[in-house]
């Protein structure tokens, strides 16, 4: 590493320490994060709204469990989708890939009698190969992802219908079905008010996450790097803890932890780390932020594009398995419209249409907003036509808020 040069006459200007405790500092800090905070508040507002409108049904343990089970596969898709969108692409094929992978797993496990785990593994490999196919056209041939994946949407839907001969495959073995609708085992056999394993996992997760945050902060403070106001840090830590514990207790008082939630949480953790802390993730942001600058900095943008689509294929496969497992049948029409739900979640979550901006967490919250809206409106007995109408409106408002916010920031910096 070269040491930064400084000529002999230069002295480093003294930088005043960040105004850590000052209220003005906190407000300024929050103003820069208006979007991230705004979407949290929107989610909470929507939850409260439907909790009131449904007379408390929304947050019953049973309903919370079903919100998680109903939305997990779209959230899994949204993880891959946000990465694709950050890189400046789009993937319209994921709904069809979900159906295709589900059908393949049906053929492996039900028709050919493979053990369920081998079938799952093979299905994930199939998803990866679908990703290789699309990634090849996008990255190395240079066809826009919109076209490649629009073609993929049609191709893989057709392929699914062909291999299924338009007849669903069913039933799947119980181990497979559990991936989509099963729960972690209840250690007390269902005799306790709060299921203990869920409590253990939830509390361990809370302590682990918060402790990790504190360790990170301590390290950064020691290196003199911390610029986050302390008050805000505590608010965040408390909020994280309350959020996880609330879900933990809610789930524990019903049937415990859905297996799909464990899978989802692991994926979110993994991919958040990849996007923030791994060279690959940083290259994705660089590619989407300014393609030319990334290329001229030595980033192999074609390889980044290729692996993004492979990754999307794998995640679509996982979502496909989860959906097939939950339905306990591989359907020719599975996954129709999932791509649009995933894309909407990503944009509600604050990703930029032009690429370069977006977070996994944001996409997850965006997906939850859509999920809670769906669920809440169903509970109120609103038809799918009204649901569709309102969801469209929310998407438009969220992106309009983004643009408004950007203009405000641009004017403020003038």
């Amino acid at each position, binding site marked *: 590493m070269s040491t930064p040069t400084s000529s002999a006459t230069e002295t480093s200007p003294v930088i005043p320490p960040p105004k850590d405790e000052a209220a003005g500092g906190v407000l300024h800090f929050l103003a820069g994060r208006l979007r991230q905070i705004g979407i949290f508040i929107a989610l909470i507002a929507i939850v409260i709204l439907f909790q009131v409108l449904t007379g408390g049904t929304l947050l019953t343990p049973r309903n919370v469990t079903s919100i998680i089970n109903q939305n997990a596969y779209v959230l899994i898709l949204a993880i891959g989708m946000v990465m694709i969108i950050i890189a400046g692409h789009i993937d319209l094929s994921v709904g069809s890939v979900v159906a295709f992978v589900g059908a393949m797993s049906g053929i492996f496990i039900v028709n050919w009698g493979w053990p369920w785990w081998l079938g799952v593994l093979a299905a994930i490999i199939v998803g990866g190969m679908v990703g290789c196919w699309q990634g090849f056209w996008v990255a190395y041939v240079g066809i826009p992802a919109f076209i490649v994946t629009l073609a993929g949407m049609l191709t893989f839907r057709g392929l699914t219908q062909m291999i299924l001969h338009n007849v669903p495959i069913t039933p799947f073995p119980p181990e497979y079905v559990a991936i989509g609708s099963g729960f972690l085992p209840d250690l007390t056999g269902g005799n306790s008010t709060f299921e203990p394993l869920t409590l253990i996992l939830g509390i361990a997760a809370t302590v682990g996450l918060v402790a990790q945050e504190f360790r990170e902060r301590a390290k950064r403070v020691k290196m003199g*790097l911390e610029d986050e106001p302390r008050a805000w840090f505590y608010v965040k830590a408390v909020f994280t803890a309350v959020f996880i514990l609330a879900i933990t207790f809610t789930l524990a008082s019903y049937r415990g932890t859905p297996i799909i939630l464990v899978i989802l949480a692991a994926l979110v953790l993994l991919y958040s780390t990849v996007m923030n802390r791994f060279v690959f993730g940083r290259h994705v942001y660089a590619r989407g932020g300014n393609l030319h600058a990334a290329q*001229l900095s030595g980033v192999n943008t074609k390889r980044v594009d290729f692996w993004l689509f492979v990754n999307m294929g794998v995640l679509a496969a996982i979502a496909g398995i989860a959906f097939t497992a939950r339905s306990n049948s591989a359907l020719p029409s599975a996954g129709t419209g999932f791509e649009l739900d995933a894309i909407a979640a990503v944009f509600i979550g604050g990703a930029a249409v032009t690429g370069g901006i977006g977070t996994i967490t944001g996409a997850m919250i965006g997906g939850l907003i859509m999920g809670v809206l769906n669920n809440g409106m169903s509970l109120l007995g609103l038809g799918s036509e009204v649901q569709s109408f309102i969801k469209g409106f929310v998407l438009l408002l969220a992106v309009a808020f983004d643009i408004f916010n950007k203009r405000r920031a641009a004017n403020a910096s003038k």
Partner: protein
Amino acid sequence: MTDHILEMVNITKTFPGVKALQDVNLSVERGEVHAICGENGAGKSTLMKVLSGVYPHGSYEGDIIYEGRPASFSGIRDSEKSGIVIIHQELALSPYLSIAENIFLGNEQQKHGIIDWNATNLEAAKLLSRVGLSENPVTKITDIGVGKQQLVEIAKALSKDVRVLILDEPTAALNDEDSAHLLDLLRGLREHGITCIIISHKLNEIKAIADRVTIIRDGRTIETLDLDADEISEERIIRGMVGRDLQSRYPDRTPDIGEEVLRVEDWTVQHPLEHSRKVVDGANLYVRAGEVVGIAGLMGAGRTELAMSIFGRSYGHNITGTLYKNGKPVTARTVRQAIDHGIAYATEDRKRYGLNLIDDIKRNISGAALEKLAKSGWVDANREQVVANDYRKSMRIKAPNVGVITGKLSGGNQQKVVLSKWMFADPDVLILDEPTRGIDVGAKYEIYSIINTLAGEGKAIIVISSELPELLGICDRIYALSAGRITGEVDVHEAHPEKLMQYMTMEKE
């Protein structure tokens, strides 16, 4: 008494942090060809944008007197309505529309919103014959060459009843034959009473066609010379363009020059689209450790193309030639390989090619050498911040912290971020393309100091610049580039701006 069709009086135009024009005066006589000369960045294009309303009335100070009356154009449509038409260097034609459609784009031959195709093509054919272009009006723009496209632009201007035609570097992209034809056409227009303002670097052309020439330097009018009345030599014009004092604008440096680090032999690069065009033609050059080597050339000479083709073939087609690093031939087919061989290139266009403007300072600085901060793919974000902060302080990047988005920084500070990025990559050879473009004088001095420090550390530096005084002020040796060929190599102690400018404007023999 002379009849002035156009007078621009005391025009001053300020951009945030930069005074682009200061009290510029220009007076153009009716029916003349008036040339405007100056180095890149002198303010010629800005002046023309003020005139054509691209910068609307109110965004500049001073007056425009057109046809004897003060004019206040609010936009380009406004100035075109009064008969002032500008043809930009980058042609503004729609490639997949026909010649006729392009000529009448925005000015369609129509009745009640329905286009009269017969009238369109008939009128277009008349206009084409006026500019001496024998093409069918329904031919698509993409099917004709650049020279003919230029003529279509002029036909388009004629369709708007042009009285003052402004041409910005009209022959920069043309071959000799097309250039000659264009100049003939301009003479013909003059006979029809159309006034022309032509911006050009090609002094022989100016001598051939212009009646008078106004020289602009550093955003000020230097002089207006009458080419018809007096015997004005090219040297005389060059002196006006470059003559300024060089003292105290450049920090001192005692060169300590070592072994040869990079050598380029017989380097030839074809244009990525027009393969028959050689953008770089048989270039030979070398640079030694601790040496600052300049590449002087006018716009379109192939400077950036030369640099980028060396930097991992990031520009051009069918590149031939040999690259030697420390005496050994090396291949750098990708940017990654070039960086691994210790070559770095800081672009002239930092917004488009240099920075991720929506990301922060630290991630831009680490962008070219992220692996130095990473262990098995895992980036140490804390160390990244420490490193970036060190650069922020030592390079005096004016920002409260390294989390600031680079799009919000001033040009000078953005340039320092780009330089920091490449310094962190720790190359042996650093190619700096127009490192001080669009930067105010104070920040320029800081950039020069950084270049000196880097050379003092034993790095080999190549500086590309269109400002001759800058090259003379900071370089040890200067190559002159013209039309893709290296036309001269001079030691800085023997270099005169006039001599260099002669090399730079040397045509193909």
